[in-house]
């Protein structure tokens, strides 16, 4: 079945030209205005009132108050001459406002000469690439990075709590020795709703980490390469780029607002020098391209430095423009906007292993898109009943198989998983395999169905297993066995007796995510009270850790936490009734190759690292 999306472009939202620069009075370099024409949909709707331009919300870019030991007083932002937090409101930011690469403070050495920088081959293509995403074909030579600078007195512009390498403690090997690598985000008790992180995702190499928040903003962190010269810089994640991905829209037909909250971000496998990611809110998926520019052409014949046309009478000789190095700029631009494909709210997207297609799933349908085509998509799953009143089950998550480009799985609110093969039929309503565990009659209650609803499904890296998260457990399924999962881990079984209260306060509908580590030996998921849990599949040991400022000292290994349910109570245990259900860890991500995890706790982003067991087993 072919479902043609309207070719009208985005409903409501305006696709902004992300390459337009924000004002930066002290900018020393200037690129001629890009000739890229913004695609405005006819009848573009104004932005809904109340939305905050991304620059006005520090969010996880906010500097911490200088109470942290060793932090020098906040230095003004190099670009604007003003402290980020104290900056007067800027004019509304365009989507994709360029963010300069994070700078270190005084004491920084000048950038090495051009010879040591990356080869300029790619840059020319970058400026001319308007058409189809041909991308930069030339491979990048690995760039020698500038030597690290002294960090001891670096004022904290962006909130960074950097930890010196921990003492090699002797932890329980199976519990790992996780310690806080860095913490981004404001410490205020009053959390602006727009700053709540709604998704976290590492890219395929782990070099980049993207976060999306409820305000529609995406922040990308890049890992600094470790250097032996300065053990302080231990591969921490610095802000690489930040841009406004989605704006709130208003659907006039339904009189409803379409939230700008980023539901999911998925990275595309990197095929050239640029990075690309898909970000989606409830209705619209956008493909963003992130490129670097560190050279600019100088010496045009017809245009002067500011880009204005020269008076031809002043041109006396011809010159060949040369490429001069410039401060590194990270540019983000929306390459594709996949709109009007979904009637219901998109809950997941997944890039296919063929790197050409991807799928997006809403509550009742799954669409298959081609990355280069925005005006049509194929509907591959449709579980909408003829009579809406017969509706008893919705799609909750979906994912493509990591290796087989014809296989995908989707989970439902009734706790079942369906593996579909796209070769079988154009419309994959009939599943190839149905994974369902029979209900345990002894645990039956009115809430049985709700707690069996699968909130997240993830294939293992090997492609052999699937990981599902329902309200109280995580389960590992073998693709070859449909009858029941091969492993079940209790995340917070102590909540089983509290289900009615959790139903009353809606917590029972919280959707937790789950994650595999790179070697598929450990699985991780979040819980309440800012706890998150890890289960080692080999040793069958599990650990509960907490992501909070108080319990994450820079040097210390995270102490395992315990929730006591009556019975013997140890000193640091927390009783079930004292759990804070407003502090929930819904979004977690694990580095694809190393023991580094990113935990989103409301508006704060924690990055933990297990330095002792840095290799995965």
């Amino acid at each position, binding site marked *: 079945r072919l479902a043609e999306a309207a070719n009208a472009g985005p409903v409501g939202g305006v696709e902004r030209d992300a390459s337009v620069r924000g004002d930066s009075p002290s900018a020393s370099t200037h690129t001629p205005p890009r000739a890229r024409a913004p695609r405005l949909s006819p009848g573009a709707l104004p932005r809904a009132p109340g939305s905050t331009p991304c620059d006005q919300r520090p969010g996880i870019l906010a500097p911490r108050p200088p109470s942290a030991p060793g932090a020098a007083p906040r230095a003004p932002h190099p670009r604007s001459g003003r402290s980020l937090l104290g900056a007067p409101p800027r004019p509304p930011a365009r989507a994709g406002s360029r963010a300069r690469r994070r700078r270190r403070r005084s004491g920084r050495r000048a950038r090495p000469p051009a010879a040591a920088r990356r080869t300029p081959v790619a840059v020319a293509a970058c400026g001319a690439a308007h058409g189809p995403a041909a991308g930069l074909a030339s491979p990048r030579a690995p760039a020698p990075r500038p030597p690290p600078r002294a960090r001891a007195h670096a004022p904290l512009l962006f909130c960074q709590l950097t930890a010196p390498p921990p003492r090699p403690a002797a932890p329980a090997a199976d519990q790992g020795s996780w310690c806080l690598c860095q913490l981004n985000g404001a410490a205020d008790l009053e959390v602006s709703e727009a700053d709540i992180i709604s998704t976290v995702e590492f890219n395929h190499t782990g070099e980049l980490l993207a976060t999306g928040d409820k305000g529609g903003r995406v922040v990308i962190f890049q890992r600094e390469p470790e250097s032996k010269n300065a053990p302080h810089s231990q591969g921490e994640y610095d802000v690489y780029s930040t841009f406004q991905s989605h704006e709130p829209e208003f659907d006039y037909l*339904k009189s*409803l607002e379409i939230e700008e909250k980023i539901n999911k971000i998925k990275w595309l496998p990197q095929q050239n020098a640029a990075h690309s990611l898909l970000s989606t809110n409830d209705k619209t998926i956008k493909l963003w391209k992130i490129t670097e520019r560190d050279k600019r052409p100088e010496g045009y014949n017809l245009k002067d430095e500011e880009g204005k046309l020269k008076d031809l009478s002043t041109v006396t000789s011809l010159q060949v423009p040369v490429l001069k190095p410039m401060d590194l700029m990270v540019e983000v631009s929306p390459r594709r906007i996949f709109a009007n494909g979904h009637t*219901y709210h998109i809950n997941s997207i997944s890039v296919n292993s063929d790197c050409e297609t991807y799928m997006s799933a809403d509550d009742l349908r799954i669409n298959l898109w081609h990355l280069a085509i925005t005006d049509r998509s194929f509907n591959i799953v449709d579980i909408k009943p003829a009579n809406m009143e017969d509706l*008893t089950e919705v799609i909750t998550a979906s994912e493509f198989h990591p290796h087989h480009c014809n296989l995908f799985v989707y989970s439902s609110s009734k706790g079942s998983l369906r593996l579909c093969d796209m070769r079988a039929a154009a419309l994959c309503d009939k599943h190839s395999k149905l994974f369902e565990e029979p209900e345990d009659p002894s645990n039956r*209650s009115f809430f049985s169905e*709700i707690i069996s609803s699968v909130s997240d499904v993830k294939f293992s890296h090997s492609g052999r297993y699937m990981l599902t998260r329902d309200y109280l457990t995580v389960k590992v399924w073998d693709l070859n066995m449909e009858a029941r999962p091969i492993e079940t881990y209790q995340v917070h079984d102590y909540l089983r007796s509290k289900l009615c*209260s959790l139903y*009353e306060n809606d917590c029972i*509908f919280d959707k937790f995510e789950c994650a595999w580590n790179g070697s598929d030996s450990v699985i991780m998921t979040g819980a309440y009270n800012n706890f998150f849990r890890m289960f080692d599949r080999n040793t069958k040991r599990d650990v509960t850790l907490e992501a909070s400022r108080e319990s994450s000292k820079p040097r210390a290994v995270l102490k395992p936490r315990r929730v006591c349910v009556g019975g013997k109570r140890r000193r640091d245990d927390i009783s079930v009734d004292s759990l804070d259900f407003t502090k929930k860890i819904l979004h977690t991500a694990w580095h694809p190759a190393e023991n580094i995890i990113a935990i989103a706790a409301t508006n704060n982003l924690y990055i933990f690292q297990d330095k002792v067991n840095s290799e995965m087993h």
Partner: protein
Amino acid sequence: MFTRGLKRKCVGHEEDMEGALAGLKTVSSYSLQRQSLLDMSLVKLQLCHMLVEPNLCRSVLIANTVRQIQEEMTQDGTWRSVTPQEAGRAPLDRLVSTEILCRSAWEQEGARPAPGLGDGHVQGPVSDLCPVTSAQAPRHPQSGIWELDSPREDRGGFHKSLDQIFETLETKNPGCMEELFSDVDSPYYDLDTVLTGMVGGARPGPCEGLEGLAPATPGPSSSCKSDLGELDHVVEILVET
């Protein structure tokens, strides 16, 4: 929302089980809990954010819970139809009152013991159940839906599955259940009527709650089965909305 240190206890677990009276108490407390759960679910179903489209998954899960409860109540035989006198609809502009959650009208009616109660059937409900307001008129059961079909079945009949309820709803008010899971085709401005049409106060049974979705429901006796009447009604709804 939970605050730190706030203890919530399951009411059922706290009861002392002593004697036959205690047994009855358990039973009625189970019914109580179940009823309060039902009421809570209906409130959740209908109080949705006006600004943003409600979460479909959540709505479906709550509706399924309501369905389960109603099925169980049907099996228990505690699902009764309303008598004609009770059929007078409460004014449509009455808002939901929180007394719904504190109701325990079944006690007054002398609830029949529900068979086969397990311990863990219904988890600890809202612990601060208000004391019974005996002033509440005891029987307003599942008025709306049932009465719509009462001409067809005997008044005492109450063995209806939720499907039939919804079906009935649909024939009467085609847009009714649809409003709950409407797609882009049916506009959402019916929600206005949902919110204002919520019948509060005296004991809205589940159907009554669902009934609230339809703005102008004719009286029970006028639930004529004639096609013409239905068509008129349909048109009336469409035109009104």
